[in-house]
């Protein structure tokens, strides 16, 4: 029975957020708290010849200056493993301050701990480092000649070369080909809350207040890095001020905070500065892609060749999987995808919202628009002609696919059929107007380990559900409250959610748009297990009105168990528990996710439509409207789900028009601030139309939740670029699309 699921409930953590009462990880007030500040490398490659800490150590309030010569060595660096696996999830297989070698600019070289933040920041400036610099490579352009084909990428889970059929032969025979190179600038996540950890030791037990997408990911990673038993670590994540992937993997700062706290025998807060956020928690790598489409004259794809080239760190072969969704979107018998890498003096890149899907689908959907232009076909019609009825790489059926409905509804909202296909024909004063569209898709990936939640009801009929996940702003805590209320059959106002604490039942990190699906599975199983347990107790209780009845005929609503066909026969949970002198009852729910080898294609789909206005004299592009229609399976909370999709679409707009981190000639990011790394402000953001088409999916998880965290961003950049072509007649193959390129 469903009464709460789907409702546009206000956020359960909303009151704390609008009053400023919610405590984020750098806001935990503790007696004796000391402050740590990092000192970072000014050069991209070389070694520390000399580190002079004399003045820093003697500065007012300084408690310790830690660096490679005196930092206590801990355990070992765990392997790179996505935090969706639920184990240790180090962002890179390098831990700083272990030797004098410098691999990238911004590398953490020393840490100053002082009584106050100002004292620590001042003393950090007094640490003098003499460098011995060596030659470096920090861009695609510098490293092009040294590129190599990756054996595997993405922590070893994706092969460097993926093929089906014979792409080369099919391209030779293709009646039409479209071939272009594309470039996407590096991106940084830049949540407004910088990463922060507050570390407290009590004897050999460690508590970390950490801004993380996965409290358990922090726990397991720090346990390995410091060689501390996992049972002795607790990670608390009350609130997270955004993440977008930079808090998905665990970087060195939580362990460094713990080491600092151990060194000074005090609680220590280590909060990264905004500038440090550009070289401490990964990034979306700069990348080139080359895409060749082959098709017949009817527009049916016969071949796709998609190659990517991007820099990675010296320690890890990482590339965001830009080829993935682009290879699954259309029916096409011949395919070749290759990841080429360059070893560079950067840190290991990482997940950034839509890791690979955003960049790869910008390329694919721009190329599809060009193919439509070449064939004089409507762009939407071209996509329908190549609609993938089954998953193209495996031939498996889709677990659910509502893409046709998304196209149809999106086209209706955008009045697509009224669009004049010729570019550059519609004006509004100095503005040239254009409309563009693109497909969207984001994979549904199961977590790697069982997901758990605990449901507990008290004798007064109020209940709490507990699970360790953190809510990074997605609204998961709110949605889980709804799932728990429905599962147990109690009203929302009697259900409380407790989360953000590794001491609670295990969940993997809230990453890959998988959080709502996997945690709702555990919460649903826990809540319904408790419901079934209480029904069974009533049926067995000779004092219960339900004694001896068939438990399958008992339904629960508003905290009262009753027979389906005779609602008058029943009693409340509270009556049952009180009669039995039970103060509470509880049940653990465990969801064992399907393996990676499930014989289904699993993806959330969508259709994106954009209207832009371009002033070609001034090089201005204003997005006037974004329309997105998606098929995320079941929607747990319409309000928060639509907010997520809207935010994703505006991220796509930002990817298209604003965001790019520029590598300076000195091997350092040249625009490492919120003043110079452009993100949308209020005036940049148009009104956004979001609709969802609810599809039934019985494969992905018990409630059929496919996820909304990232799919909103996929295809938006291409829809905008295609709209710019429609407005101006010019194609854009580089992101961000800048004023200079529009003039």
């Amino acid at each position, binding site marked *: 029975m469903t009464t709460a699921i789907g409702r546009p409930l206000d956020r359960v953590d909303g009151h704390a957020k609008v009053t400023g009462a919610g405590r984020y990880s750098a806001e935990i007030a503790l007696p004796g708290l000391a402050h740590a500040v990092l000192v970072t490398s000014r050069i991209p490659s070389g070694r520390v010849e000399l580190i002079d800490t004399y003045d820093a150590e003697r500065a007012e309030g300084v408690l310790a200056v830690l660096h490679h010569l005196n930092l206590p060595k801990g355990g070992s660096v765990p392997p790179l493993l996505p935090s969706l696996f639920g184990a240790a999830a180090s962002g890179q297989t390098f831990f700083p301050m272990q030797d004098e070698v410098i691999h990238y600019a911004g590398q953490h070289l020393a840490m100053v701990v002082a009584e106050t*933040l100002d004292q620590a920041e001042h003393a950090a400036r007094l640490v003098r480092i003499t460098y011995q610099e060596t030659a470096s490579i920090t861009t695609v352009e510098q490293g092009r000649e040294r590129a190599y084909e990756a054996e595997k990428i993405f922590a070893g889970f994706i092969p460097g070369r993926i093929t089906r059929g014979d792409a080369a032969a099919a391209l030779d025979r293709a009646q039409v080909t479209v071939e272009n190179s594309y470039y996407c600038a590096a991106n940084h996540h830049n949540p407004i809350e910088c990463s922060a950890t507050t570390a407290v030791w009590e004897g050999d037990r460690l508590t970390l207040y950490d801004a993380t997408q996965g409290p358990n990911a922090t726990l397991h990673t720090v346990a390995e890095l410091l060689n501390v038993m996992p049972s002795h670590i607790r990670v608390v994540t009350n609130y997270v001020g955004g993440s977008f992937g930079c808090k998905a993997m665990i970087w060195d700062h939580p362990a460094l905070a713990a080491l600092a706290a151990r060194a000074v025998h005090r609680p220590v807060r280590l909060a990264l500065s905004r500038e440090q956020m550009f070289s401490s928690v990964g990034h979306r790598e700069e990348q080139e892609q080359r895409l060749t489409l082959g098709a017949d004259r009817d527009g049916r794809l016969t071949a796709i060749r998609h190659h990517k080239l991007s820099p990675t760190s010296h320690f890890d072969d990482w590339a965001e999987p830009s080829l993935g969704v682009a290879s699954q979107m259309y029916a096409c018998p011949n395919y070749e995808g290759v990841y080429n890498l360059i070893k560079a003096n950067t840190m290991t890149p990482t997940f950034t919202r839509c890791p690979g899907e955003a960049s790869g689908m910008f390329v694919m959907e721009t190329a599809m628009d060009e193919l439509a232009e070449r064939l004089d076909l409507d762009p939407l019609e071209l996509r329908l002609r190549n609609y993938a009825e089954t998953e193209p790489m495996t031939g498996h059926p889709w677990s659910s696919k509502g893409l046709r409905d998304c196209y149809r509804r999106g086209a209706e909202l955008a009045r697509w059929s009224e669009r004049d296909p010729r570019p550059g024909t519609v004006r509004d004063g100095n503005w040239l107007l254009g409309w563009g569209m693109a497909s969207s898709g984001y994979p549904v990936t199961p977590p790697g380990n069982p997901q758990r939640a605990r449901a507990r009801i008290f004798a007064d009929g109020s209940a709490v559900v507990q699970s360790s996940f953190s809510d990074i702003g997605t609204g998961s805590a709110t949605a889980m409250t709804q799932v728990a209320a429905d599962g147990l059959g109690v009203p929302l106002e009697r259900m409380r959610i407790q989360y953000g604490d590794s001491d609670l039942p295990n969940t993997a990190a809230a990453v890959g748009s998988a959080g709502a699906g996997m945690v709702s599975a555990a919460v649903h199983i826990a809540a319904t297990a408790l419901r079934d347990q209480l029904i069974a107790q009533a049926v067995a209780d000779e004092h219960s009105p339900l004694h001896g009845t068939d438990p399958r005929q008992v339904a629960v609503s508003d905290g009262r168990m009753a027979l389906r066909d005779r609602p008058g026969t029943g009693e409340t949970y509270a009556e049952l528990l009180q009669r039995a002198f039970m103060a509470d009852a509880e049940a653990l729910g465990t969801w064992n996710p399907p393996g990676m080898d499930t014989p289904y294609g699993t993806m959330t789909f969508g259709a994106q439509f954009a209207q832009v206005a371009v002033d070609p004299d001034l090089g201005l592009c204003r997005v006037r409207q974004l329309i997105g229609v998606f098929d995320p399976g079941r929607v747990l909370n319409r309000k928060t789900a639509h907010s997520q999709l809207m935010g994703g679409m505006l991220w796509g707009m930002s990817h298209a028009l604003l965001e790019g981190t520029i590598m300076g000639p000195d091997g350092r990011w040249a625009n490492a601030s*919120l003043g110079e790394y452009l993100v949308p402000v*209020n005036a940049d*953001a148009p009104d956004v139309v979001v609709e969802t088409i609810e599809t039934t999916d019985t494969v992905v998880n018990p409630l059929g939740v496919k996820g909304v965290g990232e799919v909103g961003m996929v295809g938006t950049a291409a829809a905008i670029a295609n709209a710019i072509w429609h407005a101006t007649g010019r194609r854009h193959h580089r992101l961000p699309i800048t004023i200079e390129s529009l003039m």
Partner: protein
Amino acid sequence: MVASQLPDAVQGPGPVDVVLNVNGATHVVRIEPRVSLLDCLRDHMNLTGAKKGCNQGACGACTVWIDKRRVVACLTLAIACEGREITTIEGMAENGSLHPMQKAFLSEDAFQCGYCTPGQIMSAVALLDEGHAGSDAEIGEWMSGNICRCAAYPNIRTAIRDVRDGVGGVRSAAG
């Protein structure tokens, strides 16, 4: 500043007593003169509603009011606020009941992670008092000092309109 207005004694660089009026209450904090109003509120007064996002005046997460005008607390020295009336998000709710703008942010889902939200609300309420909420375009322009990385911008505009127009009974008492 003319010589006669200069303080008698040099203050700092060590900690000094600073008298601040925050949300209607007077506090004496012992801080170094270099401490920003933001760090003073967060680390010395345990008022963490104003957020640190960039510490260089670019993001607006630390927006508070000084004498009813919005300022970024990260670029303001605490010691320079003596004799001023400082208002933070903690001073917005009255007698435990939310300010109409806080209610509107809740009901319109005008935030996700919540980290920029106190600054957005301080800006939004001031914006109405400034008379800068005439149109959506005007709201967008005058709210552009507050970055929301979750991009809840359209909902923020809706929340401000709600309060401006009294939708859902959330009209500002002042407005």
